Structure formats: C-alpha cells, structure tokens
C-alpha cells in the first residue's frame, strides 16, 4: 500500500524502520543513507512519503529538503522529518519547507506506521 523512502545515515535506524514497516504492514521501504542518495531515489521510486533525518553528515536534512523541493518530480512528495533535536521546530520552519509533519527520535518502531498515517491519512 504505502511506499516509504527512509533517509537516515544510521544503518540501524534504516533497518529497524524497514523491518517494522515491512513486517507489520507490508509497506515497501526504500533506503537512502545520504542526502544525495535520497534525491536520486526519491526521483526514481517516487515514494508516497519520505522520512528524512534532520541531522546527517555532509548534506544535512534541510539542504536535502530544499533540493527535493526544487525537483520537478520530488517537490510533490510529502516529507516527514525525523528529529532528535531537543527543541521542536517552529511552525514557520515547517511551513517554509512544506513539511507534512515531525516524528521525534527516538520513536516507537512498532507504532511508526500509526504516526505516519496520523500525519498523512
């Protein structure tokens, strides 16, 4: 049903998200470990939603986001940010990048799909 692209430089997080979404809900999950890869895969797979980690080395989440929003195909894909930041982002930031929602890290992997569905019914 849902096709999800997970962008996180941590393999552990990638795998836990993939396992849980696939096993629990049969969703298709694609993985990207960097911003560059994310752009590439978003374009090729055109997932229903992108889960994007904010803090990645080299190209960070926001730069990736900006580039996603510039691509003709990728601009329409909803993005949910994964963030372990202590302070939640403000409304303006969410609106500026047209972010669909936030999921705080650490998250409960068993309820991740529920959270995604809550943001994007």
């Amino acid at each position, binding site marked *: 049903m849902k096709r999800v692209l997970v962008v996180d430089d*941590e*393999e*552990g*997080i*990638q*795998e*836990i998200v*993939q*396992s*849980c979404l*696939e*096993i*629990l*809900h049969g969703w298709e999950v*694609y*993985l990207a*470990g960097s911003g560059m890869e994310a752009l*590439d895969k978003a*374009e*090729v*797979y055109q997932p229903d939603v992108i889960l994007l980690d904010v*803090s990645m*080395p080299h190209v960070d989440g926001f730069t990736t986001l900006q580039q996603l929003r510039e691509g003709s195909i990728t601009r329409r894909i909803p993005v949910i940010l*994964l*963030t*372990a930041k*202590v302070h*939640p982002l403000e409304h303006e930031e969410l609106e500026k990048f047209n972010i669909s*929602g936030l*999921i*705080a*890290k*650490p*998250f*409960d*992997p*068993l*309820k991740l*799909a*529920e*959270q995604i*569905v*809550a*943001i994007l*019914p």
Partner: protein
Amino acid sequence: MKILLIEDDEAVATTIVESLLAQRHLVNTAGKGETGLELAKAYEYDLIVLDVGLPDLDGISLCRELRAQGYQVPILLLTAYDSSSDRVSGLDAGADDYLVKPFDLEELLARIRALLRRKNQALSPMITYGALRLDPGAKEFTYNNTLLRLTPKEYQLLELFVMNPRRVFSRGVILDRLWSMDEFPGEETITAHIKSLRQRLKAAGAQPSLIETVYGLGYRLQSPEKFESSSALSNRSDTVTALTASTVTVSEDRTQQAVIAIQALWQKFKAGFLAQVKVLEEVGIAADTNQLTTELLYKAKQDAHKLAGSLGTFGHDEGSRLARDIEILLQSETTLCSAKTQFLELVQTLHQELDNQPSIQLNFSQDTQPNPLHTDSARTKHHVLLIDDDVTLTQQISQAATHWHWHVQVASNPTSARTLLAQHHPDVILLDLTFSDSTEDGLTLLRQLAQQMPMIPVLIFTGRGSLSDRIEAAQLGGRAFLQKPASLEQIFNTVTQVLEQAQKNEAKVMVVDDDPSILETIGHLLAPWGLDTIPLADPEQFWEVLATTCPDVLIMDIEMPKINGIQLCQVVRNDPQWAKLPILILSAHTDAETRRQVFTVGADDYVQKPIVEPELVVRVINRIERSQIHRQFAKRLAYAQSSASIPEKTHEAKT
C-alpha cells in the same frame, strides 16, 4: 543463502564474491548475460546481483526476460553512475533495487540483506524455533542460549532447515542448495554432515531428532508443535492489535515477528553503539587530562546526538535519556570541563545500560501508556537527584532504583548538585543538610532551589532533626522531611508521596465542544499523560468555568451553536489575565482561510478533526511546556519580590 552474481568485470566480481563468502553465502558467478540466464533458470537461487553493462545480453533485458517468465527471485542491479535512465528502466524491468558503481561493499551487503529479508519475511532477523535460535546478522545459532559451534556447511544446512521449517529436503536438493557446481560431493556427504550437525545439537542439549529423517524422502526440521512456543513475547503481542480508529490493525504474529526483528537488530547494531559510547569515554578522559581536541569534541557531540535519537527506538529509552544528558554537557568545552566527573558517571551509566537487554515490550507495552512521541513528557521513569555525601547510602538507593523505576543521579555536595541541576531538572530532589567535603549547608541550596526551581519538589533527608531545622526546611519550601536512618522502603514511600503530590498539580486542559463524544475522547486521550480535562459542552458557561478552573490550556471547537470558537478565542485574548493562555482550535476544515482566521484571532495552534491521538497529545504538551516555563518564571519573580522584604538569616554549618 545462494546468490548468483552476473558481472563481466573480473576484479569487481572477485571482490563481491569474497565478501559474500565471508558472509557465509554461496555464490555462483557468470561473466556473460546468456550464461547468467541459463544458471538462473537451471538452479534455485535466493538472490541475483546483476550488472547492467554486460557484453552480450545487457542486464536490463535479462531482468525483463526473467520477470516475463514469472521469475520471483529478488534482483539487485549494479549500474553505472551517470546513467539514470538505466536505473529507471531497470526498475521498470522488474529489478528490486539498484546500486550505483562504484559502490561501498558494506552497502552492497546491507542491500542484499534487506532484499533477502524482504523476499522472505520469516527471514527477518533472529528466528526462534523452540529453544533453537538463529541470528542471521551474526550468523550464529544458539540452543537454549548456548552457542552452537558449527562449521560453515553445518551452519548453512541448519539455516536451510530453519528457513523452510516444514519442507522436506532430499539429499539432491541439499547438494544443489549448499554446494556449488564445481564441487561434486556424493550424497553420502550429506549424510555425514547431518550426522555431525545432530551431534552438535545433542552436545548443546537438543534432541537429535530435531532434524528428522523422513524415510525415503530426505530431512526436515521436527514439526514446530513439538516445541514449546516462545512465551517471552506473548504479553507484547496483544497490545498493538487494538489501534485507534483510523489506523492500521496488525496481527499478533506480525507484531511478534517485528519485536523479534527489533531485538535481533539490537544485537546486530549494539557493537556500533558501544563504539560510539567509547568515543564519549575517550572525551571524558581527554577532558580530565586536558587533552581535548576540537575534532574529538565534535565527534563526541555527534555520537551523543545519534545515540540520543536511536537508543530509544531499539527499546533503550533510558539510554536515549542518558545520551541526551551527555549531549547537553558536550555543548561546549567549558560546560564539559566544569562537569567532568558527572560526565564520566553518565557515560559509565550509559555503558552499563547498553549491557541490559532492551525492554521493548515494557516500554511500549500498553496503548494507554504515553508513547515516546514526545521525548520529555513520555518518561515513565522518575528522575531523582540525590544530594548526599554518604556513599553507602547513595549506592543502596541507586541499586534499588532500577526496581523502583527511578533514574538516580548523585551529587556529593551542593556545588556538584548545582552543576547537575544546570544541565537537567529532576522530578524530585533528596537533599542532605550537611556535607563532609563542603562547608556549605544544605539549607542554602534549598533556599536557592525554592527561588530558582520552585516546580521541583525537595525532600530533606538528613541526620539532623531538630525542630528548628524542620521549621526552617518547611519555610524554605521543603516538601517533606525524612530523618536518617531510614529504610529503603521509607525512602521509596516518601518520595512516591511527594511525587504524587507534585503530579496533582499537573496541567489542566479545558475543552469546549458541543459534541459530548469529542469531550470524552479528548479526556480519554489526555488522561494517561497526567492531564486533567475540564469538559464543557455549553459555550454559554464558558467564562464562569474558565475563571473558576484556571486551566493551563484551552481547546475549542470552531463550529458550535450560538457562539463559535473563533469568537470565544477573541474574547479570551481581549482579557489581559488570559492573554497568554495557550489556545488550540479544533476544526474539520483544513482550508487556508480557516487556518488564517484561527491564527489571526490569537489561537496558538490548530488541530484537525477527526482527532488523531499522537498529534493532539504532542500539540497540547508542547503548549503546556511553553506556558509552564512562563509560569515558573512568574513564580520565581513573585518569590524574589516577597523574600526581598524579609531580612536574610545567616546559617552556620551545624555539625
């Protein structure tokens, strides 16, 4: 697993083959497309790794051809960097994933693992079969937690059985699956391997009949009914099935599978997390010996951040907490150096925490329990700061704390307590009044706490018990006075009481909606978070109820008869007393105009109907936290003003 690699570049092929062999996979290679096609048709593989740029038949056509024939095995494409058209057409041709050359071997292996897992969901890490358990990440089998020492072939054999638990394998099929074409062992080899495998199992306490001989057919794993079902996860599995309305329902065994997968992933990534903790340890040592470099500090900061974000997801909530505290101390060299001891203690605790099994089933067990959406409010553990120089006592309490679900930090004197408090606010403080290594009296600290952190309850726990001490402590806002010696039980009970009192003061949320079912739902959703709801169905009583209950947050529906939420919001904002009361507006409308209107009249946030639990909870809690910061500040100000008129008393250290 048996993998077919179709790659014409010999150097690349050799590297891939070597690393796949190291992972105990069996690999066949083909340098030409045609050969690859033949092999794929002739033998049973678990996965194909396919180069796009082959000399004869190109990879994409090959892939298309295989899929056209209904070939189901996962295919991973290797493509050249500059060719995005290859990637698109490759996926269209039915490939499952692709990797751009040049690639990182580790990544290739990770992709292969992911594809193999997708192919067979049962292959999700850590497969338990009665007392027999396979950890595919570590390539290890255990029986009753005893590691089975197996040769590569024995491992592959057992893996084959466990992966296909009801299937009978003839010797011929086993040969085909586990031996490559250029080896020609006889079928008696299989018999010998089965025999040695049974011996290994027996040595670990298993019945030799675990691997059954099916007369005239071959071998299979004994039927699962003969094993006791693993009960460890049963309390976990019935919890996720009852999800709220609009969401997905999940069957029990899938949940169980997912939990097993998470546990296996923990085993797999634990070493990586420990390596990050090691960096933190190095930083602690470097800070202690004045050898801290900017690079090391930067690296440690990143690692702490990663740990804080990840550990909880693996079921180590406490680990995430500790890492967060560590991350805060790493903000700058100055903060770190001013709290070296505390830093090292935190890192050490974190290290110990990682040695515990992650408690995924406990942390996330009940639907009614807050989930860890919001990192700070979701704590079920209480954070207790012990300010005491009695090492034996603090150790006793720390040990008992794990059973009590406390997270304990210890400061041996007021100075280190201040450092800790600057970094993190506990739920409750246990404060001794005299300290061997400090001339400062605990009461001085108590006064400071009452002024600066009035929300944190302080419990005086001391050997001093004179009436004047008690009076003074009470005047300074101490919530309880416990005289030493006290039993652990007494300590626990007193702290629990104090915490309960403190929680009673937790936030109140007033909800205005003409639909009683909404009122009930919201009350239900917020209750587990310690939030009291004040429901109001009739907006005409709005003002009276607001004035009598003084809520911390207001939630209002937009569409109500007679008075609507927008109007109410304006009214509230016009009164200076309520100008800062956080207001959330509920509405089924999502259009820009409604949103604009909501924010124009001064509402703080907007929640869409139908209400989605996590969203509502996060938004309410966000608002409460912000307003509590304001209120704390106001309280502090009021206290400072009132105490300014009272002459300062002097305190001699009484010993």
